[in-house]
């Protein structure tokens, strides 16, 4: 937190990664171990070749010691990702992906690359999906400038994506709000520009609502 810039509302990428490490994954241990009783819950018991659900941080820690293999989550298969990518390209909406998909995929690519089948394919698919989604966010944000709006709703946006646009969007919305309220000073004289008049009418309505 200390090295963050003034946009203190946003998380840093590393903080998001930390949060993402609480997501559960399935591992196949190759050792025998008693259940672990942790604050976040009990995990295990661990038996060789018997799958177990553990948080990602634990999976990575065990993986680093060579005690298990990680089973990639269901959505991280080539078929699923291809489907998501196509749907993402076709529709205007964001497709449903895990909230932390960017962070989880990065962690798995870093620490468990041999456990993921077709890793190059999977990686490039995720990159493509991410790019398509970012492009969508960009076009979506243009809407703010076209009409009077005070809030945005981006369904199925992931943690990382929301975090990246957060400082920008909040600042932009603040400025628009400020300018809109300034503009709402009751109008007496007429304005030659038609576009401006239309905007004014809208603002009068806002005033009435208060």
């Amino acid at each position: 937190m200390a090295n963050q810039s003034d946009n203190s509302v946003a998380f840093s990428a590393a903080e998001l990664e930390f949060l993402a490490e609480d997501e559960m994954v399935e591992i196949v241990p190759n050792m025998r171990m008693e259940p672990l009783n942790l604050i976040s819950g009990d995990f295990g018991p661990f038996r060789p070749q018997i799958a177990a659900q553990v948080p990602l941080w634990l999976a990575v820690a065990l993986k680093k010691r060579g005690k298990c293999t990680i089973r990639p989550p269901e959505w991280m298969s080539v078929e699923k990702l291809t489907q998501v990518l196509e749907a993402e390209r076709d529709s205007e909406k964001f497709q449903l992906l895990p909230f932390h998909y960017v962070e989880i995929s990065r962690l798995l690519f870093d620490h468990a690359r041999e456990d993921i089948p077709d890793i190059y394919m999977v990686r490039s698919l995720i990159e493509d999906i991410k790019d398509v989604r970012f492009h969508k966010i960009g076009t979506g944000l243009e809407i703010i400038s076209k009409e009077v709006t005070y809030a945005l709703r981006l369904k199925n946006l992931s943690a990382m994506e929301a975090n990246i646009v957060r400082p920008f969007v909040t600042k932009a919305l603040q400025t628009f709000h400020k300018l809109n309220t300034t503009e709402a000073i009751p109008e007496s004289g007429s304005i030659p520009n038609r576009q401006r008049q239309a905007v004014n009418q809208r603002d009068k309505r806002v005033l009435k609502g208060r």
Partner: protein
Amino acid sequence: MGMNEIRVKLKGSLYKFHYFNISAIFISIFLKLYISRKNGGLGFDLILSSSTLSIWRVVAKIVVKFSFLALKMTSYYDIDDILAEEEMVPAVFLQTANEVGIFDCADDTNKVEAGTHVEMPFWLAQELYVRQVVSIKVPPYFDTKAKTRNEIGADAAHVDLRSLCPYFYDFGCKIARLIGEKTIGPLLLVAFRTRYREVLIKAHTAASIVAPKHFSLLTKEETKLYEAGQSSTAAFKKWRMGGPRLQKASVLGRKRKPVE
């Protein structure tokens, strides 16, 4: 004058106390009213029974005022807000004023005659305007007949607003609110809408040194917006590229100096 100054300086905290107390009183009144109504309307106090409507109106007024002050308080220590008020505005003295020859020191009388045109910073003009000592005219770039207005209407994205006024929007809002000028608000909005789109595209593209030429046209507010988008994108890129996951403290790498 001394008292006045103190009051202005302590404005934030004084108002804070004041309004918290009043709003607390009204909330308690409201609660009492509500409770007594629920019990069948028997326990009305004398004052409260007079008119529910007027109480509502007062509560509404207080809430509006309170939120307005909260807004004001947040900007009290905001350096950009202070700097935006440094902007010069043309003003005309309505009364003869002594001891302010600094504005118009043609001779050593050290006073300004009524009707003198002077330029003064906004924060001063604002106070004098409220006391009806000066009348304020809008700066040339907000003028209805000015060239700037047409330029913004044509292509706001390429107008050099920074050289006109580094706090174009903040200052515009302030002056429009003060003198009730209705044409500034729409102008600002049109300008920002067009320019926002440019900033949006530039802020989230990969190359960080994309357009220094474009950058020099942005006002302070737009620059901040741009930097907000840029820095978060850059931070994400950095994280994705990897790099050292654990950073070594600078002390650890150091070798101990051999003892002589």
